[in-house]
């Protein structure tokens, strides 16, 4: 029969596979380290993230002339150990990222699957919701809401959860529509499976690896958004450390003590980078072609 039409994309994919395999190891490692750092923060630092030492403010990291091993990443404007703040700050970023991306995921998948599976009016209503959500400028709405309700963890997590579900919904809706046309779904119906059974056993497993990718993207997105909110002074409330807040605090000395924002900025960059790469890697590893 007619041979080979869809192979031209394969070399690109294989390169991506290559990169994500190596990327998966490296980025997974970085993510793991950040995770361990966040969880075992009290064990990894001799200091408390809130204890101030006003006499020792702005000690630079150890690689500067005035740096000391006592505070190897230096101290901040209130003399708090920067390394310790960084470790505890990872908790805020990871918590907000994971929880809000998960809330958004539950919301988005529920909407997307319903729209895709039931079609008709349900689909029209949910499509309308998606359009509505997309038309709202995320940062502005987030800023306004946080300004109105103050930036507690709960508010931020719920807010981001309510703002970031659109990509899940769009992806699951499209995929569910495609899947619904597949004959194995028709077979399931013929075999007497219920709607919930079909959604749970036939549709969701086939969305899983796409959802993992969207999930990681949204975790990264939520982390960056929270950081931007913190940067504008409306994110996690001080003195709770968060990386966006640390950049915001260090910003005042941008031109004089660049390391103050370079360190949390790089941490944020590495975290988001590794989450994205892990997402790519997981997708490739869990693709159905690789099931054995």
């Amino acid at each position, binding site marked *: 029969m007619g041979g080979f039409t869809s192979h031209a994309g394969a070399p690109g994919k294989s390169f991506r596979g290559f990169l994500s395999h190596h990327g998966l190891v490296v980025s997974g490692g970085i993510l793991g380290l950040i995770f361990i750092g966040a969880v075992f923060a009290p064990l990894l630092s001799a200091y408390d993230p809130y204890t101030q030492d*006003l*006499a020792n*403010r702005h000690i630079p990291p150890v690689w500067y002339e005035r740096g000391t091993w006592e505070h190897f990443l230096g101290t901040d*404007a209130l003399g708090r150990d920067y390394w310790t703040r960084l470790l505890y700050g990872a908790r805020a970023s990871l918590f907000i990222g994971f929880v809000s991306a998960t809330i958004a995921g539950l919301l988005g998948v529920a909407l997307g699957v319903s729209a895709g599976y039931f079609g008709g009016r349900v689909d029209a209503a949910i499509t309308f919701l998606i359009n509505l959500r997309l038309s709202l400028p995320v940062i502005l709405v987030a800023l306004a809401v946080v300004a109105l309700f*103050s930036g507690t963890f709960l508010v931020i997590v719920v807010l981001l959860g309510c703002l970031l579900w659109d990509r899940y919904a769009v992806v699951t809706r499209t995929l569910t529509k495609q899947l619904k046309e597949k004959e194995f779904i028709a077979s399931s119906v013929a075999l007497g499976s219920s709607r919930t059974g079909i959604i749970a056993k036939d549709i969701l497993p086939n969305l899983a690896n796409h959802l993992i990718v969207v999930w990681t993207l949204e975790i990264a997105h939520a982390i960056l958004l929270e950081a931007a909110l913190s940067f504008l*002074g409306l994110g996690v*409330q001080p003195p709770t450390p968060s990386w966006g807040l640390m950049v915001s605090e260090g910003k005042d*000395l941008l*031109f004089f003590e660049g390391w103050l924002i370079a360190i949390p900025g790089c941490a944020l960059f590495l975290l988001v980078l590794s989450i994205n790469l892990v997402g790519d890697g997981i997708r490739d590893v869990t693709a159905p072609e690789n099931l054995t």
Partner: protein
Amino acid sequence: MYAKKMILVAALLGCGALHSAWAGKNDDTLRIGFTRESDTLDVYFNATREGVVMAHLIWDALLWRNPKTGQYQPGLADEWAFIDNQTLEFKLKRGVKFHNGEKFDADDVVYTMNWISNPENGVKARRFVDWIKVAEKVDSNTVRIIAKKPFPAALEMLSNLLVIYPNEYHAEAGPDLFGRAPVGTGPYAVTDVDIGKKITFRANREYFGGSKGAPAIGNIVVSNFSDKNTLLAEVLTGRIDWMWNVPADQAEKLQNNPQLQVVNESTMRIGFVVMDAVGRSGDTPFTKRKVRQAVAHAINREAIVKHLVKGRSTVIHSACFPTQIGCEQSVRKYEYNPDKARRLLDEAGYPDGFRVDLHANRDRPYVEAILSDLQEVGIDANLVYIKWPALREKRRAGKVALQHTTWGSYSVNDVSAVTSVFFSDNPDDYAHDRQVRQWLAEGDNNTDLEVRKAAYSKALRRIAEQAYWVPTWTYNVNYVFSKDLNFTPDYDEYPRFYQSYWN
């Protein structure tokens, strides 16, 4: 192909490289950077400090207070006198013209005073105008202003804030247009307004001089920057000549910059911790005096001033700015003593401390330092950092048990501008102390200086004794400006650009 593009881009950027000229002096234009948007220029509707600063360029008041001596000097009025304790009479300067050529006379003063004191006109800064009952013209150069009741701060108001409008133009333009195309008698005339972005001033070469003196710099451009660091970058690159409110750390670093001057000056703004002594916010430990005193002992104000606030700031103990008339200094002082604080808490029945929300609206690092001190003695305070309007609303609704906030007294050098604001019968009062209220009223409504001082002294001593407040420190401002500019800041936090000149 890409390499070529990159070279092209680099070349383009390179050609456009900035000339790092400190251009201000060369084109006789002083470029000022503010971080707060100036909305209307009408000072009665824009009582922000930036608004008042610009108002002093555009307009004159009847009097002018010399910031160095604190004495009142002639402004638009040459002479003034109290006819009785509610009536002031002014002899106006002759031959003064507004920027648009309109002649200045008694009609302008009467119009302005009566317009702003009419509540229907919705002037924002009500506190400054509410005292005026009516202004009357005696002749074209003589005006009387009659107060509703004896008002000791009248001269203070008339010297700083109550500027005179041109009656004809203001009536014709209406308040909105007037705020965007203002006309005054002042040393600088507004030539261009880009609301919220940029305001351009030109020296008024026909200025009558008077106490302010003739303007030396030809042009002033005020620009707004949302971000302090962007503004600092502009100053560092010489595109802006003057900025203020530079944080202490940056000011320190800028000391070594050969192109810039850094000057620190104290201000009339004070910080203070307010505790809910009446229990308005519910059952709170602060209703116990010992708890309040524990808080006062817990906060290491000396360390915070030394390491964070820096500059010319000092620790204060009395609930007012030290130079303000009636600001009694010999009040009970609470030294930093965490052990004593813990003991007091123990005695008050809180051996393990308690949890509370600490509200604040500015100076986060300072508040964080206070927070840390409180935690040290066992008070688990949680920071609620919100914008001023929100804090104000909450505070007035009686929902705030503990707050750190600041007050600038509008640079009014009188205790009535601060203590009376927070301890009189109004929603901001968290002490509800009848005695204090009575003494303050006595001071506020009397024109005899000694009587006033005695009354305020009693009030302030009781406030300290009861530890209703923990007054923290005075604030200071760091001014950073070009080496070319001769500029002297004053403690009242009103930069007087009309007295500046190029070196």
